């Protein structure tokens, strides 16, 4: 009874996944043999593995090196503040925006032309959707490095990083090497789940692969997405078999990553014993520069979205359009408010439910770190399975229950993806409240409910607001859950942007992508500002 709220939380998160998997995983031998006859299948799968794993390794390495330089160089506060907006921006919006930056006729080459490149026409280069998937990898790194950075920041709270680095420096090590030897391994241990989620998402996403990924052939996730959404219903068994294959491949890569992690750890410990001191005065410059490049590309992609959505005629080397023409917005004006309103409503409902479920379940687990960690792992399960692998089965189940296309089904599917993040933030914030606050309050004569309302809730207000913004951001960002649980009939900013992208209407896609990026950003700013304003005269309230 005491753990009722925990069970409700776990069931809300895992029921759709288990039911969906049961619906997707079917032993249809005909479909499997047809799947293996599909031309380009091996190339598609290889591309998925390649882009996903390279992007994950790069994002992880970047996050570690930049964090090391930032903490030892005293700019970690600014780094953290800069990571939040990038985390809040949806993959799809960044992906679409990045095509507008990187494409041969994109912002980047416009800035360099003709003075540096000599181009007066866009060159015939494959800078996006390139066969090697480099643009896709870059897009993933831009989104996942800030995410891993924030996971590292959260882990930092449990490691005496500054004292450890001071210790290594007094032993004669430079600050970067000192950090990488003494602190990074302790942090890495705590961010295994986020890294696993990044790897699986990288290998199996549609949001980034759709705008940036290769086309001949596309990564497997994109192939499956085309089959699932095809009007030809005979493609469905093929798509289901394919999504099981993708799941097996990503589970295999997860295992490989775990093994590689152990190996790196061993080499690491060995090299730490070599006693070689590396000191360089410019230790912070390179990581700082990389952080700026990644951040600038992320910011540029959002600016590109806004610019493209209101651009009139825009001849190639010109950096700015000749004049502005908000035609995309005015032609979108008939649908955009409705679509944005529905996105907002879905996001708000998801956020409210996620925060309530997490707060209720965090209460009985507040002093049990082991159980909290187990819940975190279970909540992460949906992020370790390709979304398609259970979403399609879920769609069939919803269809049978006549619940497909209902808003409740869509909210539930969003909840599955919001809960792991909200739990990570809010359950830990609850646990870190000194229990003597509530003990004192009760001894002063207040009952449980009054203590929760007057002491616990206000002290958690800032974390709760951030949790709301986080869940809202997830709901606005997700594409496949809306597509599948909504039965293709629920139009959010994400599905509209993806549809416009597929139809080749970049202006329309940019307008929806810009709106999709601005909603969660606004929510984050509102959460931070509101949390500051409410307790602006109370300096002791936890951040």
């Amino acid at each position, binding site marked *: 009874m005491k753990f009722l709220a925990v069970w409700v939380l776990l069931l809300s998160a895992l029921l759709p996944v288990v039911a969906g998997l049961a619906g997707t995983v079917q032993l249809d031998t005909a479909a499997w043999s047809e799947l293996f006859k599909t031309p380009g299948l091996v190339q598609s799968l290889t591309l998925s593995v390649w882009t996903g794993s390279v992007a994950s390794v790069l994002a992880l390495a970047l996050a570690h090196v930049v964090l090391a330089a930032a903490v030892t160089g005293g700019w970690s506060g600014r780094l953290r503040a800069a990571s939040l907006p990038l985390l809040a921006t949806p993959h799809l919006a960044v992906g679409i925006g990045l095509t507008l930056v990187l494409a041969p006729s994109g912002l980047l080459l416009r800035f360099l032309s003709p003075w540096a490149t000599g181009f007066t026409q866009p060159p015939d280069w494959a800078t996006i959707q390139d066969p090697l998937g480099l643009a896709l990898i870059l897009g993933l790194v831009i989104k996942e490095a800030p995410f891993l950075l924030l996971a590292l920041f959260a882990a930092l709270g449990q490691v005496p990083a500054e004292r450890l680095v001071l210790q290594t420096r007094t032993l004669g090590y430079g600050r970067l090497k000192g950090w990488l030897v003494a602190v990074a391994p302790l942090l890495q241990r705590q961010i295994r789940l986020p890294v696993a989620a990044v790897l699986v998402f990288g290998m199996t996403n549609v949001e980034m692969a759709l705008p940036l990924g290769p086309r001949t052939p596309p990564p497997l996730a994109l192939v499956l997405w085309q089959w699932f959404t095809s009007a030809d219903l005979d493609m469905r068994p093929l798509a289901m078999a394919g999504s099981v294959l993708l799941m097996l491949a990503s589970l295999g890569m997860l295992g490989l990553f775990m093994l590689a992690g152990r190996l790196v750890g061993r080499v690491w410990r060995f090299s730490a014993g070599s006693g070689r001191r590396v000191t360089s005065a410019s230790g912070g410059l390179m990581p700082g520069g990389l952080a700026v490049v990644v951040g600038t590309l992320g910011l540029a992609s959002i600016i590109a979205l806004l610019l493209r959505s209101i651009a009139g005629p825009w001849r190639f080397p010109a950096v700015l359009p000749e004049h502005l023409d908000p035609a995309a917005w005015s032609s979108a004006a008939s649908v955009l408010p409705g679509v944005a309103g529905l996105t907002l409503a879905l996001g708000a409902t998801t956020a409210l439910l996620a925060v309530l479920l997490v707060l209720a379940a965090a209460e009985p687990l507040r002093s049990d770190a082991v159980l909290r960690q187990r819940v975190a792992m279970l909540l992460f399960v949906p992020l370790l399975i390709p979304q398609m692998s259970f979403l399609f089965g879920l769609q069939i189940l919803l269809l049978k229950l006549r619940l497909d296309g209902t808003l409740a089904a869509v909210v539930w599917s969003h909840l599955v993806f919001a809960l792991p993040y909200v739990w990570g933030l809010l359950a830990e914030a609850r646990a870190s409240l000194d229990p003597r606050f509530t003990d004192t*309050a*009760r*001894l*002063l*004569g207040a009952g449980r409910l009054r203590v929760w309302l*007057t002491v616990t809730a206000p002290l958690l207000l800032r974390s709760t607001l951030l949790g709301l913004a986080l869940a809202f951001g997830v709901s606005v960002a997700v594409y496949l859950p809306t597509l599948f649980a909504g039965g293709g009939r629920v139009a959010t900013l994400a599905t509209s942007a993806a549809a416009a992208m597929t139809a080749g209407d970049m202006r329309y896609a940019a307008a929806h992508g810009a709106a999709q990026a601005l909603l969660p950003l606004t929510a984050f700013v509102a959460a931070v500002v509101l949390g500051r304003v409410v307790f602006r*005269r*109370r*300096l*002791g309230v936890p951040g």
Partner: protein
Amino acid sequence: MSGLVLQSVTVSVGARQLVGPLDLSVTPGQVVSILGPSGAGKSSLLAFLCGVLPPPLHAQGTVLLNGDNISNLPPEQRRLGILFQDDLLFPHLSVAGNLAFGLRSASNRRDRGRIISDALAGFGLAGYETRDPATLSGGERSRVALLRVLLSAPRAVLLDEPFSRLDPATRQTIRALTLAQLRARSLPALLVSHDVDDVVAAGGPVVRVGNA
């Protein structure tokens, strides 16, 4: 029978007994000191008396307060006040808000405000009502914490090393103030401390727990 009485109280972790069996009687106005090494279960004993002993710790025995068995009451009905080494003022409330949270007597808003202002003035904190606790000095925070406990009209007070974080000069002042207030109100009190000066100042019997 008035005062705080412990009857064969034990505190254990699993099969390992930390404290007791302890029989103890604290009369009104008396401060009994509990001494013992770190980890001997002194704070756990206080947590048991408060009714907030966290698992895996568990305890047995009876606690009587002014003759009533309070062993099975929820914390908010025990009428025990506690002071920790951290003042634990609620950071989201003003000084007056903190005091009002604990204040038991008077129900109308104006009376409550007057009681709080008078109490603050009596402790040398006149005009501190709207202050943010985070902006107070250590000594001021200790005074507010003591006042918060006293205004909640406890029937006994538990002191868990409440002076140990203060600098030496402040420490003496706050200790004298606290002990004088407890005596003036004839409150029975239990003091957990490492500091011999605290125990001497308390002046009551000394109980040793653990193998010290």
